[in-house]
């Protein structure tokens, strides 16, 4: 699907990488400044590197030396960016029908299918300044798909959205991949997106590919894991199995100091380390341990950090020797009068915990 070798030197940064992937969904993962957007722009034809060769779907679109340069409009790679970048002078329909042939495609069955998957049919006649952030991004994805690209390029398509909307858009992209069968290359700094969407993933660090493979394999490596917890907000843990409860359907994982976490039953040997992950918004915070609940994990912990990010609050919780994060609303943080040092109880449903390896 993709073969890239390229070298380019900026005044403060250099990009030197080699990457080949069969896709169909390649995730490019890295912190900001690692060169992921530059790489995506080079593939799209919006940036011309000093040296290299890029082949997309078996077709060479760039070679230097070699003198091959296919301009962006003839690469058939539609780009979706973090900011939806809809054309402000056009309606939703005008945006969707922008690409050559997109107007006819829009009214054909294939186009209807795209509108249906993205739930944008009811928005067609709206003006774009009346759309919400999530709606805008859906229209941007629809506009790109209606260009009939051989490959979709996504540059952090969910990072301008709040947690709920970004999960919604992620779900749509999973459907785009599965039901519309459009291959894609997407850039992200969220481990959860990589796990959900990518068949293959490459980790970029300072302009170089430092790891590549299946997302679960790549995220397993300590180096990549460090990177994920550095830039992501989700909980990725590498902890030992301390016991299985087959009738109860859970595997107990040791969090240190005798505290255990109940995860879905797995076959890993006792004592061996496993990697698990769960969303920060799957963690509930209570001031006291509630009685009679279904959640298997009610863990006493200390609040060690409170960070406000936009309309969300990320709460760092120390459980035994493990630190996790919970995502709650500012209103909830106020009502609970959370402050660092406070002793609280974290509730996590067993089914929210996913094994990554």
């Amino acid at each position, binding site marked *: 699907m993709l073969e890239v070798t390229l070298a380019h030197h900026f005044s403060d940064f250099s990009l030197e990488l080699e990457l080949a992937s069969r896709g169909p969904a390649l995730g490019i993962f890295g912190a900001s400044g690692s060169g992921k957007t530059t790489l995506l722009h080079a593939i*799209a*034809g*919006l940036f011309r590197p000093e040296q290299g060769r890029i082949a997309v779907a078996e077709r060479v679109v760039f070679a230097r030396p070699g003198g091959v340069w296919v*301009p*962006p*409009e*003839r*690469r*058939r*790679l*539609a*780009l979706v*960016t973090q*900011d939806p*970048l809809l*054309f*402000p*002078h056009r309606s939703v329909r005008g945006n969707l029908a*922008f*690409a*050559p042939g*997109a107007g006819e495609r829009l009214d054909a069955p294939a186009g209807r299918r795209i509108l249906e998957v993205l739930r944008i049919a009811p928005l067609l006649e709206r003006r774009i300044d009346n759309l919400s952030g999530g709606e805008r991004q859906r229209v941007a994805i629809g*506009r*790109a798909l209606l*260009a009939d690209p051989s490959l979709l*390029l996504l540059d952090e398509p969910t990072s301008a959205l709040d947690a709920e909307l970004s999960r919604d858009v992620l779900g749509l992209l999973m459907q785009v991949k599965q039901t519309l069968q459009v291959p894609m290359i997407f850039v992200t700094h969220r481990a959860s997106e990589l796990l959900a969407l990518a068949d293959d993933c490459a980790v970029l660090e300072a302009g170089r590919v430092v790891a590549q493979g299946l997302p679960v394999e790549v995220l397993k490596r300590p180096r990549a894991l460090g990177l994920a917890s550095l830039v992501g907000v989700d909980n990725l843990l590498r902890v030992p199995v301390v016991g299985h409860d087959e009738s109860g359907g859970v595997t107990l994982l040791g969090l240190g100091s005798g505290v255990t976490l109940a995860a879905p039953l797995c076959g890993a040997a006792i004592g061996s380390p496993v990697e698990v992950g769960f969303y920060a918004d799957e963690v509930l915070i209570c001031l006291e341990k509630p009685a009679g609940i279904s959640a298997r994990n009610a863990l006493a912990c200390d609040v060690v950090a409170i960070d406000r990010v936009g309309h969300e609050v990320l709460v760092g919780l120390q459980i035994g020797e493990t630190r996790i994060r919970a995502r709650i609303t500012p209103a909830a943080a106020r009502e609970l009068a959370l402050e660092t040092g406070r002793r609280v109880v974290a509730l996590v449903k067993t089914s929210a915990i996913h094994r990554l390896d």
Partner: protein
Amino acid sequence: MTSDAEWAVILLSIRVAAGAVALSLVPGIAAGWLLARWDHPLRALVQGLVMLPLVLPPVVTGYLLLFVLGRSRPFGQAWHAWTGGHIAYTTTACVIAAAVVGFPLLVEAIRLSMLGVDRRLEQISRSLGRGPLDTFFRVTLPLSLPGVASGAVLAFARALGEFGATIVLAGNVAGETRTIPVAVYTLLNVRDGEAAAMRLVAVSVALALAALLASFWLSARKRSA
């Protein structure tokens, strides 16, 4: 009240100003786009040349135009051989003089509004399969129309007031090159001309004000659209 001769002057002025805008609109859009989007060391030089009529004394601009277009000059002679007519001292000369002098105002307004168009929108357009020219007509130009309109109105107003280059290149031919400023100058030099001059001055002020209000209205309308 306003006499037929005065009406002829006013209508000629409007015709000349409209002709000047029509003549400079396409080159003005091209120059504005070039100056907004062309990354090249020569851009500063091109920008300087485009802006030159703004700072040169209009009489000098007129003389330079006469130097090229004059009846005894090679271009003027070639034009005569080709069309049988002349440029200098005709209404066409008024239009050219007004167009050249108003050009920097037109280009600057267009350049600034094109600079305000998010380049990422142009990149998205390219990645969706639209080539550079298509992208220009579908994204860049529509989004900079308020600037084009206000630049055109400013150039129109400037053309109405053009005197220095006009008097040199087009002279003072009643009914043909005697625009409002030239007529006012002429009237002030004749006995009892002051009343007529004042009427033309009033018309001049009204036209200029109307043009400015139109430009404000246009840009406000574009913003809310």
